[in-house]
């Protein structure tokens, strides 16, 4: 198996709300910490990525956030302009005016064009070896295969033309498991686990891209070990607890009911999620690395949280 961060291009995806951007930002940070020239790219231009590094908004033009770490946000129109500049070698600035208005229509009408401009730009950075590692905060699991399969779709639909000519090298990089991989982020809940398993299958059927790893995010800690759970249950036992609570309340000098309720909630949440986590572990294709990231009891999700998640991922990867 190729070590995760030795690949050149990682697409980080997952169901909405599972912490896709957190993991992408953290993997990129970890890459940079490991001494790799790293680019992190946000595909959905929601401007969330910047929050995870607490820097100003990212743009299409890459910007160095910290030593070795660059960030950009995808913009298909800008990508097209760059492509035309590089390929046609003509200063297009003057002619691109009407493009802005009508571009959306062409891109929408011609399936795969928007996708290939997105994937193409990233693959270009890999081909030209501008970076050691490109981490993509990609689209959610529902849309990712369409994006990754765009070069093949174009190859089937388009017989000639410049876009078609570009697809061969793109597919070559995408299909090279030593260079390219997908990371699926899952929270240990029903739907995210379902979507992860489903996507693992679809990646194989519909794309040439390798599943590099699955990250189980926000895993709750196990509160009690063997024997301890029984003690906790006794503390919550309907028959016995009133007397115990009285003793405990007096000793603590405050209410204990809510404390035990809180722990009960944590135990039950952990148990429910444990079932989904077990299912994820069992049903993933054999040999898929599964990395665990604990739930962070944090005030906010800024750069501090990104560093912590990066540290956890680093541990999981054996750094």
């Amino acid at each position, binding site marked *: 198996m190729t070590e995760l961060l030795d690949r050149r291009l990682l697409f980080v995806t997952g169901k*909405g*709300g599972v912490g896709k951007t957190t993991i992408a930002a953290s993997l990129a940070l970890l890459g940079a910490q490991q001494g790799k020239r790293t680019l992190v790219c946000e595909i*959905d231009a*929601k401007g*969330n990525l910047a*929050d995870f590094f607490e820097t100003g908004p990212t743009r299409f033009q890459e910007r160095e956030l910290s030593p070795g770490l660059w960030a950009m946000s995808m913009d298909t129109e800008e990508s097209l302009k760059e492509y*035309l500049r590089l390929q046609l070698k003509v200063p297009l600035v003057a002619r691109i005016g*009407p*493009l802005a208005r*009508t571009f959306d229509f*062409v891109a*929408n*009408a*011609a*399936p*795969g064009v*928007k*996708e290939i401009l997105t994937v193409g730009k990233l693959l270009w950075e890999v081909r030209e070896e501008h970076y050691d590692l490109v981490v993509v905060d990609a*689209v*959610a699991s*529902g849309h990712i295969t*369409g994006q990754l399969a765009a070069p093949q*779709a174009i190859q089937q*639909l*388009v*017989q*000639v033309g*410049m*876009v*078609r000519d570009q697809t061969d090298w793109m597919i070559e990089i995408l299909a090279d498991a030593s260079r390219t991989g997908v990371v699926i982020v899952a*929270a240990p809940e*029903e*739907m995210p686990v379902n979507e992860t398993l489903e996507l693992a299958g679809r990646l194989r059927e519909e794309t040439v891209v390798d599943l590099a790893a699955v990250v189980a995010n926000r895993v709750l800690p196990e*509160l*009690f070990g063997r*024997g*301890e759970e*029984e*003690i*906790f249950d006794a*503390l919550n036992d309907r028959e016995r607890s009133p007397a115990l609570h009285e*003793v*405990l*309340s007096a000793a*603590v000098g*405050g*209410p*204990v009911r*809510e*404390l*035990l*309720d*809180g*722990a009960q909630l*944590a135990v*039950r949440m952990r148990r429910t999620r444990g079932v989904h986590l077990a299912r994820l572990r069992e049903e993933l294709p054999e040999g898929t690395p599964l990395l665990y990231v604990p739930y962070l009891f*944090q*005030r*906010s*999700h800024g750069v501090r949280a990104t560093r912590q998640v990066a540290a956890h991922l680093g541990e999981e990867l054996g750094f």
Partner: protein
Amino acid sequence: MAAKKKQPVRAKRAGSSASGSIEQLLAAKEIVIHCGSGGVGKTTTAAAAAAMAAVHHGGKVLVVTVDPARRLANALGLEAFGNVESQVPPEAFAAAGVEPRGELWAAMLDTKESWDDLVRSHAPDAATRDAILANPLYKNITGRFVQSHDYIAMERLYEIHSSGRYDLIVVDTPPTRNAIDFLEAPERMADFFSSRLLRWLTVPARSRMLTMASKPFYSVADRILGSKFLEDIAEFFLLFQTMYDGFVERAEAVTRTLADKRTTFVVVSTLESAPVREAEFFVDALQERGLHLGAVILNRVLPSWFLEDGTRDAATVLCSDADRLAGELPDDLGEHDQVERVLHEVGESFLNFQVVAKREAEIRAELAAAPDVVAAVPYFDHDITDLAGLLQLGEKIWH
């Protein structure tokens, strides 16, 4: 849990800014659209709201969902969701110990099938219909067209609503890249079909050469995509254009339905920063478009007792003084070291969750700027596996 005997209160000022409860909102509206960021529980809250309306208000209630968990289908007593509407069997309600006043129906949105239906109903003749359905580009475009999911969801909603089969329709919206995409989908669809570019694509090739000479943009498009591909697209749209009038008319009708005063939007969010930001964005987008924001549902909110200072102090004592406290408890509870660890963990777990609860409270205070109905659904420590669970959640948003 039993259905209420008294008649539901009808909100009098339908269409005006909502005030009161989700119960009143659902009694006054015919279409309720749940929207929000992915993973916040749109589907579950939509199903719960619909179930509550069927139980308490009566009438025929339909919940349309995009991608339900199999468990949710099971919870509703359905084998599976299909594009066809199916009734939730009365036995499912009986199992939950409830006698509903009305009927609950459920349907799923199958994008491909819905597009096919649309083509079938708008195609001028059988030959055109078959040519479109068989066109290789058709599948690609309906499957991948950025707005196609969004549009078809709204289109289907319009179709069902205008059929008059239901008193109330609760819809959960597709996961879009951008929350407002589906609001603009009908308009964009109309724009798309009447665009200059589409007309250009569909004029005969020879006259296009003339146009192209004067329009550098088209020559660029030609060089990038290749003229053959452009011709393929053109052929497809030529077929599609036969349905132009029907489509545009329909898209406009869908837009009107969204703005109708019988329609309301419910924004769903968890108290995490990214979903809340999207929720706020959505609230603004609704306002800008003059659409009705009925309620905000905050999902998976931690219990408020996590915020209490007295309890926090007790938790701190539990953490720092676990050894002494373990000694105070009866010996038969367990080994001293283990009891000590349990007490310490209980205290620490509380303090951990308090951090999250405080963060949530702050975010909630920021959201308080959005008026209207705000309902908070607590964090359920188990999955919802049956109608009883769904109604239990429903109770939390109802009043």
